[in-house]
């Protein structure tokens, strides 16, 4: 099992006390599996993804990534997990504006010390970015930027790809195209995919679906 999350709880402090966001959520993700995480706004989807991505820590519960507990890791340990074992795709793309497409694409692989020029070239080709490698993010459309972000996440060949509404900023046709590519590449690399989405149409294209409601699995 790639990810085994058990009884995750998370709450955030507010002016009136504490707001519970996750109430004992558990999930598993196997290698090669594609899991859609759906739910209405405020249901805790993004918070759960952040915990699984080692961006944040749960108040309680356990997260095993490849059998290793990451819920209690410190900042440096979690940073290493993010760098070496997780590919992240954000809704806002979060490309580095001062690096061109080629450098953005290869960035995380370089960061992880696993840069493979041939694989990056393949990714660029497959994602339709081969002619755009010397362009900067501001010179790309939203769809193109998201393809760069997907390429960046897959360049180090991570065992897990986590995507937070990766098509949320794109029109329907472009969103379909982007998801096609993600699924194709995930299948090819054998990575497990967990994707947060609002769209039931897109969720239906993944192998499994987990619906969150008010911080719990519905």
């Amino acid at each position, binding site marked *: 099992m790639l990810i085994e999350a058990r009884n995750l709880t998370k709450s955030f402090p507010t002016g009136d006390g504490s707001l519970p966001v996750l109430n004992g959520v558990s999930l598993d993700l196997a290698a090669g599996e594609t899991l859609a995480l759906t739910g209405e706004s405020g249901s805790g989807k993004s918070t759960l993804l*952040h915990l699984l*991505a080692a*961006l*944040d820590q749960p108040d309680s519960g356990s997260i095993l990534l490849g059998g290793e507990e990451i819920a209690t890791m410190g*900042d*440096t340990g979690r*940073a*290493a*997990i*993010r*760098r*070496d074992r*997780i590919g*992240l795709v*954000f809704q*806002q793309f*979060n*490309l*580095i*504006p*001062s*690096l061109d497409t080629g*450098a953005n694409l290869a*960035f*995380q692989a*370089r*960061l*992880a*010390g696993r840069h493979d020029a041939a694989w990056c070239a393949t990714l660029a080709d497959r994602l339709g970015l081969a002619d755009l490698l010397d362009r*900067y993010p501001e010179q790309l459309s939203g769809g193109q930027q998201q393809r760069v972000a997907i390429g*960046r996440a897959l360049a180090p060949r991570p065992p897990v790809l986590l995507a937070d509404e990766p098509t949320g900023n794109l029109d329907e046709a472009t969103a379909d195209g982007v998801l096609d590519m993600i699924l194709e590449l995930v299948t090819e690399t054998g990575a497990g995919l967990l994707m947060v989405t609002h769209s039931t149409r897109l969720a239906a294209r993944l192998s499994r679906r987990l619906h969150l409601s008010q911080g719990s699995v519905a």
Partner: protein
Amino acid sequence: MRRAALAALLSHWRRQPLQLFTLLAGLALATALWSAVQAINGEARRSYDAAAATLGIGGYASLAHPDGPMPVATYVALRRDGWDVSPVIEGRILRGETRLRVTGLEPLTAPTGLLPASFAGDAGIDPLDMLRPPGVGFAAPETVDALQGAPGLPRLVADTAVPPGQMLTDIGTAEILLQKGGMIDRLLVRPGQPDHRRALEEIAPALALTPAQDQGDMARLTDSFHLNLTAFGLLSFAVGLFIVHGAIGLAFEQRRPMFRTLRALGLPARSLLALLLAEVMLLAFVAGSLGIALGYLIAGALLPDVAATLRGLYGAEVRGVLGFHPGWALAGLAIAQVGALAAAAHGLHQVHRMPLLASAQPRAWATVSARALRRQAVAGLAMIAAGISASLLADGLAAGFALLGGVLLGAALLLPRLLAAVLGLGARHARRPLAQWFWADTRQQLPGLSLAMMALMLALATNIGVSTMVASFRLTFTGWLDQRLVSDIYVTARNEADGRALRSWLSGRADAVLPIWKVDLPLAEAPGEVYGIVDHAVYRQHWPLLRSTPDTWDAAFANRGVLINEQLSYRAGLSPGDTLHIGEGWTMSVVGVYSDYGNPVGQAVVGLDSLLAHHPDVPRLRHGIVASDPPALARALRDDYGLPEANLIDQARLKATSLQVFERTFTVTGALNVLTLSVAGFAILTALLTLSTMRLPQLAPVWALGLTRRRLARLEILRTLALAALTFLAALPVGLALAWCLLAVVNVEAFGWRLPMFLFPLQWVALFALTLLAAAAAGALPTRRLARTAPAQFLKVFADER
């Protein structure tokens, strides 16, 4: 991992060359001005040290004849009796355009510390060469260069230990050069003389013993001048740091999303912080190196004026040529690092505290809340209060500068709050929608511009303060010269016999002959001089008295009282009615205090009879002459009496010379003033250029609503001018407060004299015009860019919103 992350961080600068230029230029300028001042101070101090170490003749007691040189026989008699003395010949010669002070020492008997290493034989010079014609002379390298090819000189050897403008040589060589004809100017008396020797009165009763002088005098006297320069250097550095702080702050804000992405992609927070720190230090190294090079050029350009100032004010000889010292360069690099880290500290702290999951949207650059503005204003008030408290609780120059620093920096911190209040007032009273938008939008721009405006305010306040101080000083000094130079002609007799003949020749030809006779005596435990004057109306009518008693002049001329200069009064805490100890068995009541600008030592004036009674051997060479037709009398003195031109100076020439010295004294201050203002102008330019890159989304809706690009551009320049004008208005009272501090606190502490403060509104008008001009020049480029922005660029703003 770190290489990839560092490359990503540095890629920002490749995409933002203007920002990189701003940062490097700001830090380089700041380092340059600071380093230039340090180089100047260092060079001056090295010259003082060289003077004290090699030609510290004043550090030994000496014997001299009041009437002039003594025969060699006197020296021989003293040596035979066991006196450990060494002869010295001194004088000046002119070679081409170089005036050279020649000092001849006797190498065998001279105290070892007086001889430079090369003189002592360390430079491989044959001692016989020094003794046989043409001899060997040791001089500073630049003096040797200036004297290349000059006839009638010994072989010159460059020695950095010899102060510029001087030559040290064997006494035999000096005798020939100065045409002394077997006469000696004085005998140095070593400390620890043998006990069995006879008393001086028995061997050479005509000789007078002058005690050793304090060798730290020059450094002590000039300390205040150098502290002034240091303060200016620090101020320029602070103004430069405003630019750096702005540039680094902007770079951090713009990269905030990048930092989050890097963290999200697996870069630990500590590594990110370390990389940012390395980046800042790398940039500081580059800027610091540029700043050191620039500082060297600035110091090289200013040093001749500083040397002239120190010569004019203190009689201190300072090399006019700048040397390169690695320690200075390293200190410059260090100050660049410290400055850059100080400017980046806030940004680094924010990165350290930045939560990984907060919104990744870049917040508006340097947006400060009303609360932050209030906090800054409170900090400003606290700084002003701290400065005032320091000046009330402590004394000395440091307390004076604490007051200056507190007022200046405090006022700068208060400025954004003040501008926000005025702009808010404008918005509330605006009727037309465009005017309302203008005021509100200007207020919105304030956070981005506030650092530049603070820098401008510092520079303007300093300019107003220093200009007011200099102009007040000039006005006072000119008036004081008119009062003080009471005689029409000043003459110096060639020797005592010539003095007697001169006085006799002048009786009947001049309205009055006023002796200017003085002895150098320690006053209040510091070097001083005591003058004797005769009763004459010119003193009673013109002498610039600051404090007096009802019978000041009667008491002085009746030998019942002494007048003292302001410096002595301040240093020794003496006022009319107090008692001054002038010498052994000579104590007098202070009856008046007079202003005596430009004189570093304490001075006392007594009736001539009193001086002669205590010092009958006082040299009677200098005289002031009051005449009904000064030019005619001067001609007669030259043509009929035969007085050399050099021994005669008329009042007008003396005034012109004094004013020239005065003007040169403030040349350096003026230059630093202009440089600081230029740095502030540059700060505005960079802030405006930076803001212009973010203005499009703010201006696009107004453009869409019907304002032309040209009109928008006009409003932009109007906004810059309005902010500059408001900043000037705020700087005016701060500048005047600064002038008051300089005149009433710093000058008194530094020089011992207090000056009245005068206001010069025309100067303000000129500076106001210059401020607007600088602001318009700084705003021209961004405005031009805006006026030429293609409509498609505006439309893109709306497209991006979808």
